């Protein structure tokens, strides 16, 4: 209950501008976009639009094709089929010109192990042909942003995992890109760093920067993304704003009842009437319904006595698990 409450509060603090009209067209247009590695199709004819100034999310289980898609959009890997235009240019013909206006946080940190923290930022800026003096200014600002001022002269190898992640994120911003692509940016970050990054991403968005983000944290997606798509096995299986997705694929509320490990399954058959959908997990039963408290009441009226019960709003996680299944399929 508490966690759900906190999430609600976060949401209202940063109202998601779902359905806000687009300003100045699309930054990414993908039509029938496909990526294959030999016979294996990693991204299978996906269509999506990213509008200027929005935060666009990609969700999906491991191996869904998110990174493959990000790499195509950042012109790091050629498309195998379909059309892809980024910042108004064809990705195949204008790779360098597109990359010049784009910042990338790859899933795996690719920091330069032979350079210090400061030089990592400095040279990355130089790869974009930014004049020396200008890069130096930006490096100092980004060191502060990433809270790495004290580590500036250290070798990258000596940083902790989260510090490396922060450095990678800072590095992506050195060219002041119009479009930033973040592939699981907050994996490995502590909560403080995560919130700091969220704030920073909001600020970027306010400055008109478009953001594409992949994440496995549903709360992150719910908070950050104006619109998102859920990918599974190379295909897009749902798209919309977080709210639209919840409306379309889940109920308003979820009641979670615990009857003890052995009884959950036995009790479930009696509960089917009480909710639109009932899901039995090893440790609890989930009732998807418009009014959770009412469902819990009704269960009590049937003479059922759960050990514990909890009512919460439906979240993106419910949508995600519904769409992509609960079991690990590789």
């Amino acid at each position, binding site marked *: 209950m508490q966690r759900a409450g906190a999430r609600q509060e976060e949401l209202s603090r940063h109202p998601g501008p779902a359905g806000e009209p687009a300003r100045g067209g699309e930054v990414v247009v993908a039509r029938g976009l496909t990526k294959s*590695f030999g016979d294996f199709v990693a991204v299978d004819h996906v269509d999506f639009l990213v509008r200027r100034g929005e935060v666009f999310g990609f969700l999906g289980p491991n191996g869904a094709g998110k990174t493959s898609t990000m790499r195509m959009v*950042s012109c*790091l*890997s*050629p498309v195998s089929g379909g059309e892809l235009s980024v910042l108004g240019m064809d990705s195949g013909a204008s*790779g*360098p*010109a597109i*990359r*010049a206006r784009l910042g*990338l946080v*790859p899933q*795996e940190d*690719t*920091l*330069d*192990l*032979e*350079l*210090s923290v400061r*030089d990592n930022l*400095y*040279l*990355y800026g*130089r*790869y*974009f*042909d930014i004049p020396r003096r200008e890069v130096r200014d930006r490096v100092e600002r980004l060191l502060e942003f990433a809270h790495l001022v004290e580590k500036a002269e250290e070798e990258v190898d000596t940083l902790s995992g989260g510090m490396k992640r922060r450095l990678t994120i800072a*590095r992506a911003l050195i*060219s002041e890109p119009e479009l930033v692509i973040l592939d699981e940016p907050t994996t490995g970050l502590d909560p403080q760093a995560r919130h700091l990054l969220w704030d920073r991403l909001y600020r970027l968005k306010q400055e008109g920067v478009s953001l594409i983000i992949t994440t496995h944290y549903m709360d992150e997606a719910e908070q950050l993304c104006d619109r998102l798509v859920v990918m599974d096995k190379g295909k897009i299986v749902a798209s919309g704003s977080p709210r639209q997705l919840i409306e379309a694929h889940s109920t308003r509320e979820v009641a979670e009842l615990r009857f003890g490990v052995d009884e959950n399954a036995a009790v479930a058959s009696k509960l089917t009437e009480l909710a639109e959908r009932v899901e039995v997990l090893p440790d609890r039963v989930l009732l998807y319904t418009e009014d959770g408290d009412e469902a819990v009441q009704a269960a009590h009226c049937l003479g059922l006595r759960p050990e514990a019960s909890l009512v919460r709003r439906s979240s993106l996680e419910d949508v995600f698990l519904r769409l992509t299944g609960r079991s690990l399929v590789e």
Partner: protein
Amino acid sequence: MSSRSALAAGFRPPLGSLSAALFGRGRARRLVERNVVAYKRRWWILATGFFEPFFYLLSIGLGLGHLVGRLELDGRLVDYAAYVAPGLLASSAMNGALFDSTFNVFFKLKIAKTYDAVLATPVGVGDVALGEVTWSLMRGAIYSFAFLCVMGAMGLVLTGFAVLCFVAALLVSFAFAGLGMGATCYMRGWQDFDYVSMASIPMFLFSAVFYPLSVYPGWLQVVVSITPLYQGVDMIRELDAGLLTPALLVHAGYLAALGILGLAVAARRLGKLLRP
């Protein structure tokens, strides 16, 4: 530095995008800049490469030279040390170029994944190839220059053509930088570097650095004369003796062609490896 800009200027895209793919889009110098910064912290590594040819010059040129005495080179008698020195200059240029274009490129390509990050910027695979080859060439140039200074100090420079000898050494470095990088892009693991030693050590011993080609039987002369090191040794030795013959152009063309070939192979292969 001038060698670098001369080289870069030589490769301005004459054929549009094809040449841009193979030789970069003018951002090769960013790779050089990166290497300069990276080596600032470990400049002493650069110093070590100088001593090997220098010690050869002392032990074989001077030491062994005592036994050998003077010998005839293009109609005049010279000390053995003066005979060996141009050959060692060429091998200096070779070794200097191979350090970075082989081990270090492999480290950056496969271990540290340095280029993965570089290629997320406007820098392209052609830039990476040309940049690394240029840097390797520069390292070869540093050793060549230092060695040439030693030769001068020891009175082993035979004529006033030292500047031309240096230019020739640059060509040797370029050829080996290109070849080294091209080969490295195909290497699967550290064990493959045995091939580099298997090629470079016999080349050093048998490419007429220490004695003239004429000691070999005819067929072996042909084999040896194909090696890029022999091409360099012969070119530098002739220049050092003050001989300007048309054969110099053949040597120069051959070395330049090898360097360009290696560069093109490297750029293509990098594209395959790094942009799957």
